[in-house]
């Protein structure tokens, strides 16, 4: 924090105002803009490099992709099958988002509004699940899905991803629900609303940031999950984007244009979602997870 409040009279010593005054300080350039600029280069050059490969013709070595070509996108979308992978990833991602969010609202509401026996045990179990390695669940989950006849079905991915998304989603959601004052809900119940109607009318509208944070979190995780899709799905028409991408890395390792175009297809949805919801996520974590 660079607010140097000594330079301001005590009454005006709001951190915001103090900070705003210091903008032209040369020390601030060194402390703030130089490291930020360096870090932005580290973050953005890899993305830019992918775009260069995806957009320039095969064989070109220009660091600027001009003239722009979409041939690599046609290759991955139609020939390699990213159209199918994309559709599968959207199905799994949206289903997991919906199921995770609904169950997380239920569980979060219970944690936030009720003091019941076993509540702290429930919390401990949720936290403990964070220590379970996905890679180490591959073998037993494969056996379970096999006996349920769900191997090669997208349902296996929806179930597995939802289970792994749930614990953190519930903890986040209970933080968001606790931020909605209970008194308003109580007033509605006094006025004759049932608890459920009161929840729908009072709490749910105020829960929008929480729903966005938890839903996008679930979607991004599911969209990115690789191991479950690799293990539970072996038919190409059930591949998701990460599995398709991993085969592109392996098989087409000479065709960097296709690899980069596939990467852009994989990145676009999650990076866009993330850019929009980033502030809700930060807010949600500070409201719930860190303070427990």
């Amino acid at each position, binding site marked *: *924090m660079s*607010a*140097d*409040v*000594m330079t301001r009279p005590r009454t005006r010593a709001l*951190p*915001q105002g103090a900070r705003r005054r210091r903008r032209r300080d040369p020390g601030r350039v060194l402390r703030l803009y130089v*490291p*930020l600029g360096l870090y*932005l280069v*580290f*973050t953005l*050059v*890899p*993305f830019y*490099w*992918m775009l260069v*490969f995806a957009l320039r013709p095969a064989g070109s070595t220009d660091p600027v992709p001009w003239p722009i070509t979409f041939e690599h996108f046609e290759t991955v979308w139609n020939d390699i099958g990213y159209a199918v992978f994309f559709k599968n990833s959207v199905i799994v991602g949206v289903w997991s988002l919906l199921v995770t969010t609904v*169950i997380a609202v239920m*569980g979060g*509401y*219970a944690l936030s509004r*009720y003091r019941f026996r*076993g509540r702290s045990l429930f919390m401990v*179990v949720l936290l403990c*699940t964070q220590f379970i*390695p*996905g*890679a*180490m*669940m*591959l*073998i*037993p989950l494969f*056996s*379970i899905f096999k006996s349920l006849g769900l191997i090669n079905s997208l349902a296996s991915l929806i179930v597995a991803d939802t*289970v792994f998304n*749930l614990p953190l989603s519930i903890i986040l959601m209970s933080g968001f629900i606790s931020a909605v004052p209970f008194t308003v809900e109580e007033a509605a119940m006094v006025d004759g609303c049932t608890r459920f109607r009161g929840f729908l009318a009072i709490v749910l509208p105020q829960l929008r940031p929480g729903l966005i944070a938890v839903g996008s979190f679930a979607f991004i995780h599911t*969209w990115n*999950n*690789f*191991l479950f899709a690799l293990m539970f799905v072996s038919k190409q028409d059930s591949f998701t984007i*990460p599995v398709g991408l*991993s085969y*592109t*890395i392996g098989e087409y390792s000479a065709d*960097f244009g296709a*690899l*980069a175009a596939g*990467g852009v297809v994989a*990145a676009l949805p*999650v*990076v866009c979602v*993330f*850019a929009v919801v*980033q*502030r809700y996520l*930060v807010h949600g974590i500070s409201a719930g997870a*860190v*303070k427990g």
Partner: protein
Amino acid sequence: MTTMRRKAVPYLLISPTVALIAAFLVYPIASVAYYSLQHRNLTRPWADGFAGLGNFRQMLFEDEVFWHSLGFTAKWVVAEIGLQLILGLALALIVNESFIGRGLARSLVFSPWAVSGVLTTGIWILLYTPSTGVLRFLGQPEAAVLGNPDTVFPAVVVTELWRGVPFFAILLLAGLQGIPGELYEAAAVDGAGRVRRFLHVTLPHLRDAIVLATLLRGVWEFNNVDLLYTLTGGGPAQVTTTLPLYVAQRAVDSKDFGYGSALTMAGFVILLFCSILYLRLSRFGGER
């Protein structure tokens, strides 16, 4: 009857979660314990049967990859967590300042968090490949960094930093936003400079957030398989094989469920032991 019904509400609300966790997390863990005592290989079903402690004996006394993977896992987790903590804290402090375009800057520097391990691999392969990568602009045209046992470790560490630092920064930024501004004012009135305000106000308030972030991230990096599986495949010559990656290879590639389960049990025990030790040593949530 009505009070009984009212008491049942929270249990009804958590019942789907409990059912899912029981069926797809608790039961699988129990079955791993069972499989670890069995010979079970999907590619050789005729050899299946009770193994007793055979899998564990093989793991502890005959399997060099297991022991090597333990060493690499420790090196990997410590390097990643140390560097991610330093860079993540610096990044969080920077984007906690107020400046024009802060929202955009946050979205940009945090964005690799949303990228999958496989995609990270795809991107960094483009950067690392000698003929086309960016290293040729730095004067290293023929260096195949991923194929060389001497350079592969820094290469994978930097790659994972690209994706991992944003998570730390997000968690620590959330912690920073919980520090009351008056504390800085009071410290400044008392004549504390920037460094002392950081050491005596920021760090103590962030302690729990730092402990939690390093623990969550440590577990996560321990368990992280996607990146190494696709970027190096654990190579060259298995020098970048972590224990979970070894488990995943046993499960996905050789379908050796019995031995893979024994390795999984070893992973559980190590992870549990290290986590408890870490929480004890850091006195998480204790008196400041």
